[in-house]
């Protein structure tokens, strides 16, 4: 079970959190201006990264805040935790 350092509450057990998949997938500004293919890409396609992966988590049994973290999907090491709106930090495995 991970120990996740919530940027608002500090380290907490993984069971307090929920993962919501890949981070930094912005909703297209003008959905009508893009093709069906591009829209479908936004809707459905996610990278399945081996290595450093940026993903969204919510502290749903805690502060209920959303945040991002960078995780090495091979080792499951959490390399960085950062708030929504912040740029993804550069991390090394």
């Amino acid at each position, binding site marked *: *079970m*991970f*120990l996740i350092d919530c940027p608002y509450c500090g380290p907490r*057990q993984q069971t307090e959190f*929920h993962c*919501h998949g890949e981070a930094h997938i*912005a*909703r*297209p500004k003008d*959905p*009508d201006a893009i093709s*069906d293919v591009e*829209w*479908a890409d*936004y*809707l*459905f396609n996610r990278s399945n990264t081996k290595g450093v992966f940026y993903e*969204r988590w*919510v502290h*749903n049994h805690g502060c*209920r*805040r*959303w945040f991002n973290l960078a995780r090495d999907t091979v*080792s*499951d090491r959490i390399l960085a935790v950062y708030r*929504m*709106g912040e740029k993804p930090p550069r991390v090394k495995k």
Partner: protein
Amino acid sequence: MTQKFRLAEGGRINRDHPVQFQFDGATLHGYEGDTLASALLANGVHLVGRSFKYHRPRGILSAGAEESNALVQLREGPRTEPNMRSTMVALFDGLKAESQNRWPSLSFDVWSVNNLFSRFLPAGFYYKTFMWPASFWMTYEKVIRNAAGLGKGPLGRDPDRYEHRNQWCDVLVAGGGPAGLMAALAAGRAGARVILVDEQSEMGGSLLSGTGEVDGKPAADWVAEIMDELRSMEEVTILPRTSVSGYYDYNFLTLLERVTDHLDDEPDGKTPRQRFWQVRAKQVVLATGAIERPLTFLNNDRPGVMLAGAVRTYVNRYAVLPGLKAVIFTNNDSAYDTALDLRRAGASATVVDVRKAPRGALVEAARAAGIDIMDGKAIVKVNGGKRVTGVLIRELSEDGKTVTGGSQSIGCDLVAMSGGWNPTVHLFSQSRGKLRFDESLAAFVPDKSFADERSAGACNGSMKLLDCLTEGLKAGLAAARDAGFNVRKAPTAPKVDEAEEGGIMPIWVVPSGKRLGQGGKHFIDFQNDVTAADVSLSHREGYVSVEHLKRYTTMGMGTDQGKTSNVNALAIMADLQGVSVPEAGITTFRPPWALTGFGAIAGRNVGEFMDPARLTAMHDWHVEHGAKFEDVGQWKRPWYYPKPGESMADAVNRETLAARSAVAMVDASTLGKIDIQGPDAAEFLNRIYTNAWLKLPLGSCRYGLMLHEDGMVFDDGVTTRLAENRFLMTTTTGGAANVLTWLEEWLQTEWPEMKVYCTSVTEQWATVSVSGPYARHVVGSLTDYDKLGPKDLPFMTMAEMDIAGIPARVYRISFTGELAFEVNVPRRQGLALWRAIWEAGQKYGITPYGTEAMHVLRAEKGFIIVGQETDGTVTPMDMGMDWIVSKKKGDFIGRRSFAREDTARDDRKQLVGLYTEDDPHHVLVEGQQLVAEVKPTPPMKMVGHVTSAYFSSNVGRSIALAVVEGGRERMGETLYAPRLEGGRPVKVTITDPVFFDKEGVRARG
């Protein structure tokens, strides 16, 4: 007392406290401090079970957690537990144990015929034999399960209490042997919070099994001193009888503490039987010791063949002599200690050593003690059935592959074997550490750590006592330092006098002079009856990967998880493939290390605590009035209220009729309620819902549909504008939590600039919905009637007023299609409100109704239920709800997806109504498939399915809602609904989904 094999003195048993116990009905005696295994051996009982597949007689192999043979059924009644390792069961007064896997008795077992037919039961036998015909598997399985199976599970409810405990520590030390004790001492003195865990009833590990000295005193005295100091440390927790069952990510470890299992008294109901610890440790020291390997020789499974180290443990720790005439069969020096101890205890001992001219201090000591040492020889066969009676010995070739010369027979009642020692790397491996193969030990040892842990002592490949103590000390200090402690008063490593040991000669299969499998068996995995011949067969059949070997032969897949067999099997396989052991690879060790009962895992989350029910303020009233309940989400909702003698259908018909002909009331408190506030609240709803919200007047209600970005319906409900910047959203009962998360997700991740705050207020309100022609009369009698008039409180508006003297919000919204008032009051006044409405409604014949009637009533009106008519693949247009999708307001979630090719198809499944043609009383089944053309047998093209089906007394016949491909264009068409139970498919006609009051005038009245 007849403990014939109990030594006159010594051992760590309490001779002042004799204990009586039963094994297979026979009354036997032992002492406090015994395990069941040691007590059985003290009574000369070696035959304790039958093996899994061949039903061979089996005895006690080990003295610890690795036991694969001596599994028993412990206790009786609801407390009974199968597969308990007798080596780990502490003896208590009145203990009752039974052998397993035998019928009718242990001594005479019918299924042992399997052994005679064993050449027809090779590796993969089940896979090969019972595959055809497939439909017969059910029959085969019953017979196989009966013949195999390990023990019986309890039938009754577990009467005991189990607890969970969460804890953190600076340093967790797994194992209380010499290395673990030193580690705990070092970390404890540094001031770290330490948890010291050991599976045994007392700390000391291997020191309790030997006769050596530490720091010039008997090892047991040294252990006692260390324990005294550890006990005096406030931050040190000592957990005996506790297994580290799993080592997970981020140093999260689970411990299974057997709190009262060793006591003769049944738990008092306050003390848990077992405690399941969940520990987060900053640092971990693994000091889990080593497990001795069996040697693989012919009939090495006979009762009386034991691990040499275990024999030593029985002699020294339990003062039990497992045999009077022993043969020690070894490939290394450690077993010479066993020979010496046996001799000291009065048994005769002969050593058969596969090594030619072994040299080492222990060998010399044995020789000096007059012990006969037969070097360069091997046991080629064990004689005896239910107990060893002797062995045959032949000369072994230098490479260990063949035997030569004549055989010599030695009579004996005990064979103590040692094939070397495997470091117990299970926890290390679970922590994702990488192993390497150590040639000098011929075993896997820890290589690279992954987690914040360090291995010390035997589990690290250091088999000498001094190394264990030194490594333990160093690991404890380093762990404390890494956990942030300054180490000032470091203990010094104690002094030990130790003999130099000679090397090991790996020998994975001891030749018998015959082909493998002839004249007996070479067992590798005793519990699952896997032999060297099985491994050889799977090699011939082309199995290359160790993982496949494991699954094909079931090697290591018993309850012991291959603790004694794993490396032997891998080495044999490597040998057959002509590669080195590390090249062949190793299977992954997975949690749990220790057998863990479901009781411990469940803890107190059983019964009413398993999934706590949410109850409304009116729950007790519903119970008093005989309601049957339905689980909706976590809520208990009244399903229907049967009167005496009424069936469910009777009750539902009565309730639905009352709602349309008189007046009826329903507890609607469970609907999700979210208070949405902030200057951007209206704009936010505009983006979340499909329809327009900016201009909703104060006090007005509006129905909304929520979509996911893929355009599919995800929730619905009525939202009311309470103030310019404040709305109250209702959601489906089951969807409330998801909707709140959904709203927060958009606010926090995509639109953080919006000033909107969402608060769940579901629990704050109690809601009574009153429906029917007399609804206004009933509610009006509890307030100022004029405030409820059609113009004063029009349809789809809300007003605040007192109802029965309780401040309330009254909404004119309707899920039944009738004139309805939904009265909301603070939860604590919910029951008072319900009673007041109930009383006031008496003269109108008010009828409480449940969820079933509610579903029928809404279906009569063609109102959808999200999750019933929808399934995540349904758009608003599919539901015929184009009217709620704004074309003008701009973007909202899901809108763009309407233009996707698949979403825009006009032959998508659309909501329709169905009438059965032949029998108007026949009710279709939810989920029933619909076809346009019936064929004699499937497959038939399915054009849709039934989503809701009820008998409607208001319509006077059965009705159904369904989704049908291009359904709106198919009104009047006939479809067929094949029946699950066979017979003629039901003929149905497609109709409009609104069955009652199509104009919708009643709700507006």
